[in-house]
């Protein structure tokens, strides 16, 4: 095999793609269709709660075309970080969608499922063994963090996915996976250079975001050869340019020259980006530098409590000039009134002043009107409702110095004014775990599904 073609239909499973682009991709006879479904960008709620950040019907729409095409053409379909966060509830959610599609298509498929959940007891033991370390500006992991986390996943490398391909899977549904793996697994299995395959995957995982104009909901095709890979769009409205592909290397990373992943780091110091005719770009020269020891990235989230919010506007300039002081006095009143309730957090976002940047805002000068979001987070929804309600009514009638508008301080757009927003999670684990075997934590389960 001298070249291998990988079709990436969309940046995130469920973000969609034009059918014409997908068809153009199929006409180039790809050897695999691969799609990344995951991101930590939408925040800790989704990993913590087990819910997907993408909508079921949108995921089903995308998958239906991919499954139909992959089965017809007898090429594997590989899904990375199923359900958005890749924990068992996410993977099972995605499996149910696939089962439904197969029944509707009246087809059957050999499915590999690779869960990525990390057992708490194993992780507690590994913590004791000194095999866990923080990733970036993160505190050391504690036993409490592990016990409090509702879901803990590790990002798998290439190895479990390669095993699933070798076992003959037609559809591979993987839990949390290092983004490039689903694109790189088949090329590496077929003997292509791992550094190039992973770098190609790093770009394909965002599909046409790396094109100009960029789009998160359009396809991108990668073709890997002996010493380079080529990227091309499948839509005449956009093209890959040397700059658009190079620039994409910056996206959502801290260091574009050094991209760490399971088992090693992609080194881009010698990488070249070459413009080819027809809106294509050739990339070469990327190296893979193995780390001393094989490290997996762990992610976990834990329940912080329950949230209630109230949205209100302020137009009175006398009140606006004292807003920080008024917020502090309202917090004091709430604390004084509910002295037995210690475990709540009360925060007031102040849009029009520093609502977007918080403490990073260098110019917190208020505008002529402010939008306030009064936010209470507490161990139960009832307590959060109570705190938010009391803070809201206290602020509504708070008698600040010099007040002329004595009928009420806040403009509410809604009745009811308060919204119970449900569970709140936080990231509790963002660490590296050293393992001896890249596969032992990611068993590949095979089974038939459909009809």
């Amino acid at each position, binding site marked *: 095999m001298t070249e291998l073609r990988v079709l990436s239909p969309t940046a995130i499973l469920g973000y969609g793609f034009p059918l014409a682009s997908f068809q153009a991709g199929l006409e180039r006879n790809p050897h695999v269709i691969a799609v990344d479904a995951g991101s930590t*960008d*939408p925040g*800790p709620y989704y990993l913590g709660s087990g819910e997907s950040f993408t909508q079921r019907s949108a995921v089903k729409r995308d998958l239906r075309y991919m499954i139909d095409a992959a089965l017809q053409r007898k090429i594997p379909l590989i899904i990375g970080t199923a359900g958005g966060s890749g924990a068992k509830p996410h993977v099972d959610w995605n499996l149910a969608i696939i089962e439904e599609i197969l029944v509707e298509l009246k087809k059957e498929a050999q499915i590999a499922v690779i869960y990525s959940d990390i057992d708490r007891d194993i992780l507690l033991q590994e913590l004791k063994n000194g095999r866990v370390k923080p*990733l970036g*500006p993160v505190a050391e992991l504690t036993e409490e963090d592990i016990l409090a986390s509702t879901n803990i996943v590790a990002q798998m490398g290439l190895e479990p996915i390669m095993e699933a391909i070798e076992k003959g899977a037609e559809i591979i549904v993987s839990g949390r996976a290092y983004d490039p793996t689903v694109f790189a697994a088949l090329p590496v299995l077929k003997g292509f250079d791992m550094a190039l395959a992973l770098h190609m995957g790093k770009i394909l995982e965002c599909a046409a975001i790396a094109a100009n104009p960029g789009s998160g909901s359009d396809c991108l095709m990668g073709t890997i050869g002996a010493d380079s890979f080529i990227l091309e769009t499948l839509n005449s409205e956009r093209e890959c340019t040397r700059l658009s592909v190079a620039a994409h*290397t910056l*996206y959502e990373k801290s*260091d574009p020259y050094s991209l760490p992943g399971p088992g090693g780091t992609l080194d881009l110091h010698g990488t070249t980006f070459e413009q080819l005719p027809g809106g294509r770009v050739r990339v070469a020269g990327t190296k893979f530098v193995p780390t001393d020891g094989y490290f997996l990235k762990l992610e976990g989230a834990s329940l912080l409590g329950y949230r209630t919010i109230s949205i209100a506007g302020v137009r009175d300039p006398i009140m606006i000039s004292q807003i920080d002081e008024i917020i502090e006095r309202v917090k004091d009143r709430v604390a004084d009134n509910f002295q037995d309730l210690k475990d709540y957090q009360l925060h007031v976002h102040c849009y029009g002043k520093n609502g977007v940047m918080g403490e990073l805002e*260098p110019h917190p000068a208020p505008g002529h009107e402010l939008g306030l979001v009064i936010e209470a987070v507490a161990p139960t929804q009832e307590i959060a409702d109570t705190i938010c309600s009391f803070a809201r009514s206290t602020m509504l009638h708070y008698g600040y110095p010099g007040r002329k508008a004595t009928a009420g301080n806040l403009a509410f757009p809604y009745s009811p004014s308060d919204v119970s927003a449900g569970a709140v999670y*936080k990231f509790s684990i963002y660490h590296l775990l050293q393992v001896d075997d890249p596969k032992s934590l990611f068993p590949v389960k095979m089974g038939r599904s459909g009809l």
Partner: protein
Amino acid sequence: MRYVKDVALVIRSKNAGPYELTFDLMFPSAEVYNEVKDAITKEKVAALYKIEESKVLSIIHFAPAHAVKITIVRPRPSGDLGETDVYGAQQHTPLFELTY
């Protein structure tokens, strides 16, 4: 003294994982990039955001994209209590005051 924003094609912010915030400044040509890149320092960035210099983790020059990348510690992990911008996509504007 000129403003970097007047010659940059792109000035953007985004999470680089839940604990870091990264800024990309891209320039239209190698010439502009080379003229501007060394004027972007940790000291200036720390001053613009009113944060300690140690919170500016790195400033990296990436010639293939005519880009300078700045990474700082997030004020709090994405989505934690007090969060204002879960994706970190609107934290870039103080960089409009960068000069060279």
